[in-house]
């Protein structure tokens, strides 16, 4: 929901998704082109600053979204610092530190590039972009349905949870286990019913093939994409120079 919140309320909401995707791609290339961990970290910092200062995504929100991924990365790096010998004993492996630093730097830069895209671009705009890029219809249909259902089911989940809590469904560990089972069963039935209802709704509007929608138009696609490409090229050049 945080990603959703930022994607609809940032200064780059009306910037063409082509431009934002181009800049994110350049960020990914820069992450891999960076010659040193420091350069990769600088790329990550630049991308994060661009998202927060350029697009106006609140810093705290950015950190909250990034935290799980950064935490996972930190955990992974820690495990890489440990070596397991043939006799199943473990020891620290300080010699792996340069490689881990490079890996962490690149991962952080790649994460910042992707966050820059998803925190400034609502998913419908991204799906529209993928449609223009001739992504397979089936994949797009699945994305559309999954995205919409995410909100429908979070509401259904919330309603059922509240109804269970109101009748002491989670008062004890035993009750909680039983309520959780009932909740799962209830949602499974709802999923089936909703799928049927959506099929009926599509048929009622003559939809019996791929889900076709018009996507929003953006005023300055060419200009925005050219600027993004220029910014992206500068980023890659800085990453190379930094090495």
């Amino acid at each position, binding site marked *: 929901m945080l990603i*959703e919140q930022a994607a*609809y309320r940032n200064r780059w909401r009306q910037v063409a998704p082509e431009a934002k995707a181009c800049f994110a791609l350049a960020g990914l290339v820069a992450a891999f082109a960076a010659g040193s961990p420091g350069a990769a970290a600088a790329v990550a910092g630049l991308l994060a600053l661009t998202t927060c200062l350029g697009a106006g995504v609140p810093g705290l929100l950015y950190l909250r979204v990034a935290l799980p991924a950064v935490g996972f990365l930190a955990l992974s790096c820690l495990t890489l610092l440990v070596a397991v010998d043939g006799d199943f004993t473990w020891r620290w492996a300080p010699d792996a530190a340069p490689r881990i630093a490079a890996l962490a730097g690149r991962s952080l830069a790649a994460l910042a590039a992707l966050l820059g895209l998803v925190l400034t671009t*609502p*998913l*419908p705009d991204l*799906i529209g972009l993928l449609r223009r890029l001739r992504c397979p219809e089936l994949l797009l249909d699945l994305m*559309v*349905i999954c*995205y*919409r259902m995410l*909100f*429908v089911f979070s*509401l259904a989940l919330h309603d059922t949870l509240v109804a269970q809590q109101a009748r002491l469904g989670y008062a004890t560990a035993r009750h909680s286990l039983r309520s959780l089972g009932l909740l799962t069963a209830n949602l499974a039935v709802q999923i089936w019913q*909703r799928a049927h*209802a*959506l099929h*009926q*709704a*599509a*048929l*009622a*509007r*003559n*939809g*019996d093939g791929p*889900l*076709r*929608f*018009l*996507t*929003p138009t953006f005023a300055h696609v060419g200009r925005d994409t050219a600027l993004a490409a220029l910014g992206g090229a500068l980023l890659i050049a800085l990453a190379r120079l930094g090495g």
Partner: protein
Amino acid sequence: MLLEAVSLRHVYADGSIGLDDCSLAVRPGSRNALLGANGSGKTTLLQHFNGLLRPSAGRLLWAGAPVDTSRAGLAALRRRVGLVFQNPDRQLFSASVFEDVSFGPLNLGLDEATVRRRVAQALAAVGMSEQAERPVHHLSFGQKKRVCIAGVLAMQPEMLLLDEPMAGLDAAMQVELLAVLDDLTARGITIVLSTHDVDFAYRWADDIHLLDAGRCIASFAAADLPQQAAALRQAGQAMPAVIELHRLLAARGVLETVPPRSLEALLASLSLQESS
């Protein structure tokens, strides 16, 4: 007649009977209320009108001709007859308002410019132009209902079917929705809606069709409802409050004998009498 059901029968896969010898006719340009208790067959009948369900027996006629149930025939029927479902979350499957409304007209094979124009017109008709870019899950229940109607209006149907359109709406939202429906009627669109609210049906409709146990037990002009006490009882419906109140007032010689259609109209008559 624009649409006619002739002895429709529908048996669901589990053996339950949805419709049983149900016959009724809808006049072009009219406002129709399917009035009945829960389980009386209102939704089943609406789904037959849109071709989502096929009758086990009986016939459906459009402008006097039997409805063609081939793929092309059903597509033609659904272009003319739009259905708005009761629960908007079961109808809206695209993420943004603009996208969802464009779904129907795109399925008609229209070009992009025409679809964009129709989407804009449909959103304007339901007062949702300002919300076009918003994601569906950020809308209120009433706004979602209006998007559902816009999604069907963009297909420019001749007949609009609404399944319990007032369910879940507060008083203000009901007034807004009624204004939308009045506007559609003024444009010549035939409206058929299902309801179990007899006061609303009497106030709003031109024609009322009473449903009970899958059968249309009576069809009559809404103004004739006071004479349908027996049929209302059979359908499990009470007489509208305004008629009961008017009857008592008329018996005391306070009001004239023609009953008004709403409490507002009754109060207006009383105020008029008082001032004169």
